[in-house]
C-alpha cells in the first residue's frame, strides 16, 4: 500500500467539506444536540436520586462514545456515497489505486471527521456538565476507541441501531440475558463501554479485555475487506462497474 493514494481519498473528502457548510454542519450539530440533551438528563437524574451513581460520567460518557462510533460509520458511508453520486468509480478503479488503499482512505476519512465531532462533544460536555476526561480516565479509553473505531465502523455500518442493545452503551453487559451477552461479546464496542464503566467505577483498567476487542476488530476489518474485494471482483467480472459508469451519460 502507498500513502499518497490513501491521502488522495481523504483529501477529496476534505475538499468537499471545506467548500460546503451542509457537509460540515452535521458533523457537530447532532452531537451537540445529543450532549446537551443527555447532559441535562444526567444532571436531572443526579438531582433526584441518591444512589451514589454519577449519571454525568456514565450516561454522558456512553453517549459520547456511541456518537463517535456512529459518526465513524456515517463518515465512511458518506465518503463512499460521494463516489457513488459523482459516478467516480471508473476514475478510481481504472487507476493504480488498490482496494486496500481505497478502503483505508475511506476509514481514515470517517475517523477524522468523527474526531471533529468528538472534540466538539468534549468541548461542550466538560464546561457545561463537568465531564472531566482526566478525572474519568477516559483519555486511555479514548485511545482505545481510536484503535477500535474504524473496525467498529465496519461492524455497525449496516444496522447500528440494531447493534446498540447488544454493546451495552448505557448498561453493563451483565444486565442482558445470556444469549444477548454472547452476542455482545462478539462486538468490539462492547469492550470499550465495559472498560469505560470499569474505569468510572474505580476498578482496574481491563487491558486484556480491550485487547480481545482489538483482535475482534482486526478480524472484522479483514472480513469486511474480503467482502468488499469479493463484490468488487464480481462487479469487474460481470461488467457492473463498467455499465454503471456508462449509464451516467444516458
Amino acid at each position, binding site marked *: 500500500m502507498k500513502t499518497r*493514494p490513501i491521502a488522495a481519498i481523504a483529501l*477529496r473528502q476534505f475538499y468537499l467539506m471545506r467548500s460546503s457548510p451542509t457537509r460540515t454542519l452535521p458533523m457537530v450539530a447532532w452531537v451537540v444536540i445529543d450532549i446537551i440533551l443527555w447532559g441535562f438528563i444526567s444532571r436531572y437524574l443526579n438531582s433526584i436520586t441518591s444512589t451514589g451513581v454519577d449519571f454525568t460520567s456514565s450516561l454522558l460518557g456512553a453517549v459520547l462514545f456511541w456518537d463517535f462510533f456512529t459518526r465513524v460509520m456515517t463518515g465512511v458511508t458518506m465518503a463512499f456515497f460521494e463516489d457513488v453520486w*459523482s459516478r467516480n468509480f471508473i476514475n478510481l478503479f481504472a*487507476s493504480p489505486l488498490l482496494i486496500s488503499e481505497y478502503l483505508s482512505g475511506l476509514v481514515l476519512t470517517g475517523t477524522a471527521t468523527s474526531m471533529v465531532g468528538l472534540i466538539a462533544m468534549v468541548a461542550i460536555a466538560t464546561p457545561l456538565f463537568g465531564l472531566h476526561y482526566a478525572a474519568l480516565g477516559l483519555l486511555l479509553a479514548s485511545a482505545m476507541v481510536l484503535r477500535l473505531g474504524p473496525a467498529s465502523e465496519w461492524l455497525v455500518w449496516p444496522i447500528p441501531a440494531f447493534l446498540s442493545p447488544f454493546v451495552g452503551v448505557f448498561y453493563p453487559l451483565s444486565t442482558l440475558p445470556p444469549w444477548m451477552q454472547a452476542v455482545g461479546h462478539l462486538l468490539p464496542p462492547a469492550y470499550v463501554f465495559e472498560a469505560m464503566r470499569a474505569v468510572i467505577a474505580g476498578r482496574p483498567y481491563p487491558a486484556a479485555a480491550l485487547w480481545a476487542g482489538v483482535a475482534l476488530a482486526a478480524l472484522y476489518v479483514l472480513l469486511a475487506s474480503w467482502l468488499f474485494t469479493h463484490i468488487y471482483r464480481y462487479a469487474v467480472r460481470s*461488467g457492473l462497474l463498467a455499465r454503471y459508469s456508462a449509464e451516467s451519460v444516458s
Partner: protein
Amino acid sequence: MSTLALNASRLCKRYGPLRAVDDVSFSVRHGEIVGLLGPNGAGKTTTINMVLGILQPSSGSVAIEGIDIARNRSRALAHTNFAAAYAQLPGNLTVLQNLRFFGLLYDVAGLRARIEQLLIEFDLQGLRDTRSGVLSSGEQTRLALAKAVLNRPRLLLLDEPSASLDPSAADLIRSHIRAMASEAGCGILWTSHNMYEVEQTCHRVLFVSHGRILLEGDPRALPQEHGVATLEELFIRLAREPLAPPRAAS
C-alpha cells in the same frame, strides 16, 4: 522496457450467448496513435474497459508495458491513463483540486510543478479555482486531458476526447496528442466518430464491428484499397455490411 505500450491478445467478452468482444488481438507501439473505429455497440468501449481493468475478459489477456493486467493490475495501470466522455471528473471539485486528487492517486512525483505545467499547457490557469462541474464542455475536455497526461502515461486511452470541442479547440487538442506520441513516445488508443480527425491524427486504425476487428491499416490508404473515396464512406459501408458474418457463441 517493453517495445509495446499495449498488447491485447485474443480478448473475448461474453454476456451469456452474446459475444460483445470476440477474439480481438491488437497492439499499440510507443509513439503510435491507433484509432479504434466502429459503429455504436461494436465493442470499442468494452475493449477499452478491459484494457483499463474495470471489466474482466472472459478469455484473453492485456499487457501494458509488458505487464499483465490480470496479474499485476496496479503496476500495469500506473503506466496508463484515460479520458472518456462517460467518466467525468468530480464536478464538485475545482480544477486544481481535481488535478491534485488524481496526481496523488497516480502517485505523481513533483506534483505541484507538474500541475502548474499542465494548467499552462491546457490553458486552465484562469479556471484553477472553478468547480469543474460548471466548466463548459470544451473546458471540461481540456481538464480531462490534463488529468489524463498527469502521470506521463506510456499508454493513453482516449474515448472520443474531442467530441464536444469546437474545431479550433479540437485542433489544439489533436496537436497536444500528436506531441504526446511523437515527443514523449506515448502509445495512444483513440476512439472517434470523426473520420477527418482520425485521418489527421492516427497512424493506424482498427475497424471493429460485432465485437471483431474487420480491418486494420493506414487511415489514408484504406479507402483506396477498398474502392471508396473517403474513410467516412468506408466506415458507413463497414457499419452496414460487415465483411464477414458475426460468429455465434458456442
